[in-house]
């Protein structure tokens, strides 16, 4: 009789997981087609209707009709389902792994009960144009949830319309534009100031909204550069759009001074609170003096990321900017909830209807399941987890946490493997892919790539000490392996669903193929040209 737990304990503490991801080797869906198979049937028209209207399609003008049916595959229901279930297993997902490697994305536990509520036919089968009388429940959810956000930010009015964080940043930029336009300063105020460690969307969305972007770099300690800000502000300044804590996990302690300086020159300040998870109930937009802010519901408020949406976001403003919010807004007359469209100064529509209702409902339920104390506990434990993981990470040779040496971080940490890369030639990306062989991974962070060989870890409140210990043990193992056996790391992953891509088609217009039909065509063309060449 073997003592398996003892053997496992002897294999490491914590032991590395002997992992292999599901690998189904599925064809592309078109390859599953078999003549005549059907996946679902459509209701047939009743004879009474047929008799009354005949063959309507045949009566339409030739020019509007499709000549041949679309070349979709023909697949039975069982096989379609099997295809997608297999593909689903070939995905990690926050429900499946210790998902701390997608730092800045606040991958946290999305409670199943909230999904159940969001899938209720009482929400799923609501049309957005129904009479207000028939949608009092969801309007109440929206109205109340806006109230929660007011409490969490200290700002005065909210809209839940934006479909995600970047859309919210864009909407805030639009409001800033509208505000200055309302004062006749639209042409003068063309600059948005941001920091390089604010999420890239602050720059990109403001640019899309028509502004010029002024980007501040950090000072030597990694804090947003106060001198640079002072130099940047002017009568051209439309506003400041900034994340805090920044994507490095560092909180800008002079944030109030930044805001004041921008206000001084007549600009507005928008707080990207998509990183709010570590400061919920600890510090707010109001105290820092912001005019606008936004939250990501799919980050801080736990709604699931859905492979990249549907998501949801909220924008909040002070009283003076409320009139610019998107239409409609939800109002309450003490008895009933309404949708108010009569807002002449509004920037108009950001997205259809009133926001991503199932996401809002989940976020509402999440707040209700925690209450005021629970929300603060979320923040405190997220920060505890982050600083614990920081401690564990810094025990690994070859990694560093640039900037603000010895200071605590808030919600995440941007690390650097520059030392290890110098020593071994193994890049951060390789380490992340090798970690995938143990059922976790990390990404190498988005822009800016100022921190060399970066990775960003954000443990949130959702992971236990044991989870973080396991994660750190995997990263330690991988880093040590980079010294011992760099080839294994550089050719990883070995135990994921698939192996390293040939990247060459991805940036080559002759080879890239974004659909199966394009791929087949290019293969034919290549074969043809190959033949011609030969």
């Amino acid at each position, binding site marked *: 009789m073997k003592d398996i737990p003892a053997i496992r304990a002897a294999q490491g503490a914590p032991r590395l997981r002997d992992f292999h991801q599901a690998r189904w*080797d599925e064809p592309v*869906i*078109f390859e599953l087609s078999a003549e005549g198979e059907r*996946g679902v049937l*459509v209701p047939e028209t*009743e004879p009474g*209707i047929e008799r009354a209207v005949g063959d309507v*399609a045949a009566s339409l003008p030739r*020019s*509007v009709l499709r000549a041949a*049916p679309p070349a979709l595959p023909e*697949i039975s229901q069982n096989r*379609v389902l099997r*295809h997608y279930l297999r593909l689903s*297993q070939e995905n990690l*997902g*926050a429900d499946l792994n210790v998902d701390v490697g997608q730092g800045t994305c606040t991958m946290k536990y999305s409670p199943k*009960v909230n999904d159940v509520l969001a899938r209720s036919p*009482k*929400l799923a*089968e609501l*049309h*957005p144009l*129904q009479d207000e009388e*028939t949608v009092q429940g*969801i309007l*109440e959810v929206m109205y109340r949830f806006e*109230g929660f956000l007011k*409490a969490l930010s200290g700002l005065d009015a909210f809209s839940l319309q934006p*479909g995600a964080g*970047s*859309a919210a940043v864009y909407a805030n930029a639009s409001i800033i534009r509208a505000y200055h336009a309302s004062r006749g300063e639209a042409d003068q105020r063309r600059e948005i100031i941001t920091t390089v460690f604010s999420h890239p969307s602050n720059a990109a*969305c403001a640019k*899309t909204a028509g502004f010029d972007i002024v980007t501040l770099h950090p000072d030597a300690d990694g804090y947003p550069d106060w001198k640079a800000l002072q130099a940047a502000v002017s009568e051209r300044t439309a506003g400041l759009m900034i994340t805090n804590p920044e994507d490095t996990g560092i909180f800008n*302690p002079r944030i*109030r001074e930044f805001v004041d300086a921008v206000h001084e020159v007549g600009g507005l300040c928008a707080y990207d609170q998509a990183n709010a998870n570590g400061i919920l109930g600890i510090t707010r937009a109001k105290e820092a003096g912001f005019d606008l802010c936004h939250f*990501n519901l799919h980050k801080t408020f736990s709604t*699931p990321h859905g*492979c*990249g*949406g*549907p998501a949801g976001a909220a924008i909040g403003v002070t009283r003076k900017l409320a009139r610019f919010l998107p239409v409609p807004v939800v109002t309450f007359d003490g008895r009933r909830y309404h949708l108010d469209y009569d807002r002449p100064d509004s920037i108009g529509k950001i997205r259809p209807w*009133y926001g991503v*209702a199932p996401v809002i409902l989940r976020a*509402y339920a999440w707040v209700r399941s925690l209450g005021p104390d629970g929300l603060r506990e979320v923040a405190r*434990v997220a*920060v*505890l987890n982050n600083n*614990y993981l920081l401690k564990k990470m810094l025990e690994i040779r070859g990694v560093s946490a640039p900037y603000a040496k010895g200071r605590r971080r808030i919600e995440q940490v941007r690390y650097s493997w520059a030392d290890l890369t110098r020593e071994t030639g193994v890049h951060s990306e390789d380490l992340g*892919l090798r970690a995938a062989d143990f059922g976790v*991974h990390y*990404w190498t962070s988005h822009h800016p790539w100022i921190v060399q060989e970066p990775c960003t870890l954000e443990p949130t409140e959702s*992971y236990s000490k044991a989870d973080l210990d396991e994660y750190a043990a995997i990263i330690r193992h991988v880093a040590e392996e980079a010294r011992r056996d760099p080839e294994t790391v550089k050719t990883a992953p070995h135990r994921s669903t698939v*192996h390293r*891509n*040939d*990247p060459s088609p*991805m940036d080559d217009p002759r080879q890239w193929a974004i*659909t199966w*039909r394009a791929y087949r065509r290019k293969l034919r063309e290549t074969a043809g040209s190959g033949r011609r060449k030969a």
Partner: protein
Amino acid sequence: MGKRRSTAHPYIPNSARAAKEAMLREIGAASEDDLYEDIPEALRFRGRLAIPEALASEPELRRHVEGLLAKNRSCAESLNFLGAGCTQHFVPAVCDEINARAEFLTAYAGEPYDDHGRFQSLFDYASLMGELLNMDVVNVPTYDGFQATATGLRMAARITGRSEVLVSRAVSADKLSKIRDYLRPRIRVQLFDFDPVTGEPDLASLEEAISNETAAVYFESPSYLGVIPSCGDDVSATAHDVGALSVVGVDPSTLGVLAPPADYGADIVVGDLQPLGMHMAYGGGHAGFIATRDEPRFVLEYPSRLFGITSTSVEGEYGFGDVAFERTSFALREGGKEWVGTAAALWGITAGAYLALLGPQGMRELGETILQRSHYAAKRLARIPGVRAPRFRGAFFHEFVVDFSRTGKSVTRIHRALLRRGIFGGKDLSSEFASLKGCALYSVTEVHTKGDLDRLADAIEEAVA
């Protein structure tokens, strides 16, 4: 009560005291408060959040939220004819099963290796849409059809280097509002008319408005007013004549029977995926698609992610990854095209599954069934004294305008009567289009039986009597 206060929260494992103490010890901090050392006292919020106390147990939470939801009356409990950009179609159970899978639901942005399933299913999606649209490039979905339209128009402006677009007047006020907001910084938006009789694009009005400054002409099939343009190639040709692009918004559920816009000259095709397997969810089921030909001048102007197919280090293995990632704001911040971020990928996966389930035959039958039902409805309504249906002579698919103006009753009044009978009448157009006072837009799909349509007609007959 009090005794439970120290209980760890189920969502916060390390709120358990033992873990917390061990970790604080490890990092050398006395309490979590120490970790906020960088936040100045003046910024600290010391009050209590004005948020109701926790409903920490699931039964309490469910009772509360279900109590709120119970105040709604859904289209499952009523007979609904609202459409206008969000359509009640049947959602196959397999679609819901797939998008409820924990792995798809909670994945985000893993690598092509550990999230192979996400990459492949979105490549599958784009490929299926490509066939439906007869286009070679389809994006990973953006937020919704509004965004797809607005981005499609900005793409056209970048591609042509011009700064004016012409938009059909037969679009919804909301979509127009979105377009205006989104294009305002750099692009002028001009409108051209639709024919008051047919509802189709008015070519004369278009000719008049178009110029060498026009980047794009935008129209829809079916239009917001339900009309299928039979002159799509004329509109596209008019655009092309001046070097502008033809940008067409299309309802993908029509394309089993109707010609894809590429076949009548569209350069950029945009629209919303909601009809392909998404619940209406009070507007939560939207996702936007953008499709073009496979030419670098188009491809390099997409802001969205584009997934492409490639080989891997293992012979015969499919790999997928990002095409032309350097276009994006993830790579270039403000130097990228517009921006990219979390959007609506799960609905892309779902729409792919929907198209795979329906197949060519299913999409055709869906179209035929809808055509027959909607035309039956129009025919039944037209028999009611004072009611004109359809208001426009152009061909229509699932939606058509019903004109109540000669009944002597306002749409509001008629619809209130319907509501009392458990029927949600179509979108009232009275204030949206000056020319359509007393009109409403009715949506009829495969979910409506003959009995439902007869019930509607009877109810309207009573209401206008």
